[in-house]
């Protein structure tokens, strides 16, 4: 809406926007600030709101005294594997739902939506027993299978929306040039919706990176822990060294915050379709 506004209205809007900015950023600022404060400053009555004696000591401690590098590697492996598999599955699933009319199409859409309402905790006990039978407990493969499953519905919805935006004519031209359907999808359609593909990959990656419940339940080996499992153990092991905690938290957050900032506007397209979780 473009209207002439009074000074008072504009000032009110500016103050409102400022409030939301401070609300959103303060906890993140505090997290990063804490990670740079020396212990004697952290555990004193005098609380400083800016770095007075900044130090990298907590980062050094996290990297040297803990297996953070291992956790990071495991999270990276689980999240990327899940993101790639989900992408391929979602490309085909989304294409089928966007381009074909078939019996059960409406029901498939409803079923995918219904899974979004599914409590994840219901799965914990049965999957624990199922996985122990198939020797998938305490493996990254087990976690990856869960992350794939949990993210398929939303990713299929996203891809379906992006496919629907690609003109059918583009594809038909490829058939005339002698492509079969798979070739047409890979060579013509997929490149045309590159932003959607990036958005889907990042969405699944962030979701897998953030997952805590299954990781805590299913992983015991120090060498297989992902970041949430590793960090939760920090609390008991290092008697709550908040500086170290916040240094580790910052390191775990930065990669996905950057990715997320980049794809946020592509995700909005997917969200308008009303199928979203998290």
């Amino acid at each position, binding site marked *: *809406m473009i209207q002439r506004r009074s000074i008072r209205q504009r000032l009110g809007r500016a103050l*409102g*926007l400022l409030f*939301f*900015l401070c609300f*959103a950023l303060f*906890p*993140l600022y*505090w*997290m990063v600030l804490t990670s740079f404060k020396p212990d004697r400053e952290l*555990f*004193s009555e005098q*609380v400083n709101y800016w770095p007075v004696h900044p130090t990298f000591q907590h980062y050094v401690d996290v990297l040297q005294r803990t297996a953070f590098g291992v956790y990071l590697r495991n999270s990276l492996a689980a999240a990327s594997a899940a993101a790639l598999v989900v992408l391929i*599955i979602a490309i*085909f*699933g989304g294409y*089928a*739902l966007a381009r*074909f009319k*078939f019996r059960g199409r409406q029901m*498939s859409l409803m*079923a*995918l939506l219904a899974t979004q*309402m*599914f*409590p994840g*905790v*219901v*799965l*914990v*006990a*049965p999957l*624990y027993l199922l996985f122990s039978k198939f020797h998938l407990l305490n493996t990254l493969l087990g976690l990856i*299978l869960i992350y794939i*499953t949990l993210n*398929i*519905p939303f990713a299929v919805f996203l891809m379906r929306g992006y496919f629907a935006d690609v003109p059918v004519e583009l594809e*038909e031209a490829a*058939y005339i040039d002698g492509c*079969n*359907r798979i070739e047409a999808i890979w060579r013509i359609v997929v490149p045309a919706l590159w932003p959607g593909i990036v958005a889907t990959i990042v969405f699944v990656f*962030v979701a897998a990176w953030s997952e*805590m*419940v299954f990781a805590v*339940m299913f992983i015991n080996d120090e060498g297989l822990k992902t970041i*949430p499992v590793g*960090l*939760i153990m920090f609390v008991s092991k290092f008697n709550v060294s*908040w500086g170290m*905690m*916040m240094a580790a938290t910052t390191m775990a957050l930065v990669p*996905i*915050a950057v990715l*997320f*900032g980049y794809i946020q506007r592509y*995700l909005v397209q997917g969200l*308008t379709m009303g199928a*979203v*979780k*998290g």
Partner: protein
Amino acid sequence: MPKNSRAVRRLVPYFMLSPSYLFIGALMLVPLLMAILYSTQYYMIFEPFNRAFIGLGNYLNIFKDPVFWLAVKNTLVWTFSSLVLQFTLGMILALLLNAGPFFGKPLYQALVFLPWAVPGFLIGMTWKWMFNAQFGVINDLLIRAQIISQPIGFLSMPSTALLSVVLANVWFGVPFFAITLLAGLQAIPYELYEAGNIEGASSTRLFWHVTLPLLKPTMIVSTLLRVIWIANFPDLIYIMTEGGPADTSQTLSTYIFLTGYKSLNIGYSAGLSVVLFLALVVFAVAFIKLTGFGREEA
């Protein structure tokens, strides 16, 4: 279109969707049925040979369990208060953003939506530190503002533990509503506002008679999904309070997680999760019926 026999062509979409069905069937549908089965059994992880069918035994124990009823109450408080605050603040933010361009808007949006990207366990840890009873910044700010005179142990007091976690959850959820509602606002044709302006309608009237009705489908879908999602989100509570003190911040999702994880009582945990699942299904159906969602689109 490629030349295939008709019969084969008819199968193509099913073939393309089969991996999705396979994963969802094997790792969501089968476990759901298993959970229903386990909920009728006495089943402890460390007593595999004592496993036995006990009918509704777990459910009877659940309904006699005072922690269960406390968790039900807390789940309602947790879900409802988080939702109302997230929705209200998200709506205000979306309206502020929708009121025209300003300098640096893309950067502003990227920053103000950032909490949405932060994993639950990281949010929990950061807010746990901010709520710290001795050295936490929230106590310091409140003392500086002379609202309190002594530091408060927000997460260790029964009266404040749940509300403190709600605040962290609100921080997390505002961007979700802001993003979805903003997308809904941007889809409203500008001509409708112009027509209203010509007829001399005030901006308040325009909001109630143009914006809200057209935004209704977006509001319904996002609220429904959010309620279910918040009710199933144990991460923050688990990290910040572990459901304590004395179960005063225990919700059904944390209780299911903790009975499975710590006491390893599969039957009981499965029974709890079936109760939560059924409650959410009933809620979703009632919500869709009451709001009339889907009728105007059909």
